């Protein structure tokens, strides 16, 4: 296999399919190398627009999405996908994650954040965390959150014992998501994200 940054490999039902969307060629290359394995096939897209096209053609299990991109940025891609009713899990991967973008993403069920620079191992763990959450309460809770089942997520997170910092933080965020859904007031959520952004980001297992 000689993967290239812009590999449009043929779909293989047995394999996990990952789409890496980033405008940085080396990073696409790196991500593709890092994730490619016998069980995982990686496709890459250089722009948001291109990514949307590929997503419309192929079903991906997970999308690793950069936030800052030239034509259509990460939030634009998320917006567009969710409008189409596509609930594919998305990992937002950026060097400069801002609270505003993060809160929009969270409201769209994007709860997995990777802060660049990323180590290959983090990337693999992230993908595993999303695609194979296992039975632990926290990954399960995040899974529920991804599907925007906030009540379920809160319930699951509560099972975490002891409640670590990240989990506690997510509990607060989830509660304010509930609040935001019920009364449309996002200010509390944004505030919470602003304060706790580094904590909310994915940490290697």
């Amino acid at each position, binding site marked *: 296999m000689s993967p290239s940054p812009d590999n449009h490999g043929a779909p293989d039902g047995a394999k996990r399919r990952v789409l890496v969307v980033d405008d*940085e060629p080396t990073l696409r290359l790196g991500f593709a190398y890092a994730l490619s394995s016998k069980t995982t096939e990686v496709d890459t897209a250089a722009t948001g627009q291109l990514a949307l096209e590929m997503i419309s053609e192929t079903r991906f299990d997970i999308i690793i999405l950069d936030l800052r991109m030239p034509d259509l940025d990460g939030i634009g891609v998320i917006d567009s996908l969710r409008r189409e009713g596509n609930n594919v899990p998305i990992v937002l991967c950026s060097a400069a994650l801002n609270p505003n973008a993060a809160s929009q993403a969270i409201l769209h069920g994007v709860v997995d954040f990777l802060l660049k620079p990323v180590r290959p191992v983090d990337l693999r763990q992230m993908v595993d965390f999303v695609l194979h959450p296992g039975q632990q309460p926290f990954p399960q809770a995040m899974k529920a959150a991804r599907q925007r089942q906030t009540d379920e997520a809160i319930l699951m997170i509560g099972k975490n014992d002891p409640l670590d*910092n990240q989990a506690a933080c997510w509990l607060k965020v989830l509660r304010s998501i509930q609040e935001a859904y019920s009364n449309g007031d996002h200010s509390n959520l944004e*505030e919470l994200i602003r304060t706790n952004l580094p904590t909310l980001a994915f940490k290697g297992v």
Partner: protein
Amino acid sequence: MLRLRLFYGLLTIVLLLWSVGAAALLLMQDSIRRADHQLKMDYQVIDAAQSVRTFTATINTSYLPALAGPPPILAPDRALYDSTRALLEEKQRTIHMTASNGPRWQNVITRLDPVFASYFEGYETYFNGDAVTRVQREDLLRFTSTQTQRLTDLTENIMTLGEERLFSGAKKLGDDSGKNFLFVVTLVLLGTFIAVIIYFQLVRHLVDPVATLERSIDEIRKGNFELTLSQPSVGSEFSKVISAFNDMALELKIRRGESDENLLRANLVNAAILEAIPSPVFVLGDKSGIIQINPAAEALTEKLGVSGRLPLKIQNILDECKEASCHFLPEDPREALLFRIDEEEYYYLPRIFRYDSEDFLHSGWAILLHNVSRIRWLDDMKTNLLSTVSHEIKTPLTGIRMVLHLLLEERTTKLDEMQRVMVTSANDDCERLLITLNTLLDLSRAESGATHLECVPVSLRHSVERVSQLYTEVAANRGITLHLEEETSGMPDILADPIRLDEVLNNLVSNAIKHSPNKGNVWLRISRPDGEFLRVSVIDQGPGIPAESQSRIFERFYRAPGQDVDGVGLGLFISREIMRAHDGRIGLRERKHDLTEFYIDVPVA
């Protein structure tokens, strides 16, 4: 001269006094003497006349009765007669002597002598015994009686005249005293007149110069140095004073001329300096408002539509300065005030300076508006550039790092020893570069965003806990223990931007860990130094900061010499910027018990 004048003036008055007194005395003595003399004469003549009558009566009483009888046998005793006659003749002489020269007096006197002679003749006849017959005797008697009668009449006349003269003498005395009185009055009037003249002379020579001097001094006090006093006559004591005064006036005039010149020059220099200064400058007096304003300031106020007045923003700062009575000399361009002129933004850094004269009469404020628009623009440019460049470098760098990590993982390809060493080294450099870039980004964020804090009430304990948790692992790797201490529980919330506060705490804690010895301790202590602030102290057991570096550690890009730990020297600078934006404090405590303590003070919400 003046003394002489005074002496002469007073001497004249004294002499006048003496002469009036002497004249009055002399006149009085003279009139008394004359009155006395006259009175004596009058008395003598009256007395003599009276005596003549008495003596004739005595003679007649003694001898005439004998004539009525027959002639005596014996010759009559003429002793009485002789003695009386002598007295009579003496009285006669007295009358002669005391008689006046008037015609009436002469008339009586000339008539008196023959009567005396006839009278004595009669008695001589009697004593000679010539009248022996009865007829003769009767004739003699008759004759003697007649003479006596005449004598009596004449003496009567003389007495009348004497009395008259007495009365006329008294009258003359009255006249004389009247004249004397007039004379004395005239003398007194004359003396008064002379005294008045002397008074005016003295006024002219003594008081007038003093009064003129006083007026002139007043004039000089008002600033009129042009006047000179006329020189008085030679020899006057005032001539020295006047010439000294004139000298003084002249010197003052020269001095004023000099100081005027100096003032003029200073004014010109001032004006030139003010004009040359491109920044608007206002000089205000405490009482008089704006005293001076340079062309730049005029132009600015005109453009702002507040010609000749201070812009409101400046006035507000000035008012604060006045209240605190201190200078306002900010250095940081970020403290500049924004003015919009013709749709453009200008930043002016107000520098307000208090000036006082030593006597506090001339005090006020000088205000210089330093145009820092360009500096601000450049600073913004630099920050933006820094941010952009850092991001632009960071993006590919993350890619490179990814690739290096992948290579080092050796999942697909094994690296030989040489390759591994090289890739590892490249990876280390890459990591270091990333850290530097992150710091630069922090710096640009601190510089651009320091004023855009989003402060909310935050629990300081939660922030400290977050940071402590974040670093627990890093610390544990080196056997360092983090201790979180709180002086008292129930501390109030603080007003802070939690993200920025975390940055500061992260920086301090990572520094503390970096400089701690292995298996050391780092304490995070929350305390409350005063009512307004909460404090977090970060204490480590590291070697501390060299004394000569302590004042510079908060500077940009400063690194204490001899450090082997990584870093670009921005952490503390950024922390300080953030704390400053919080109106908080950051500092290094004096090293005690081999402990280094950094602290931050955050205002209570």
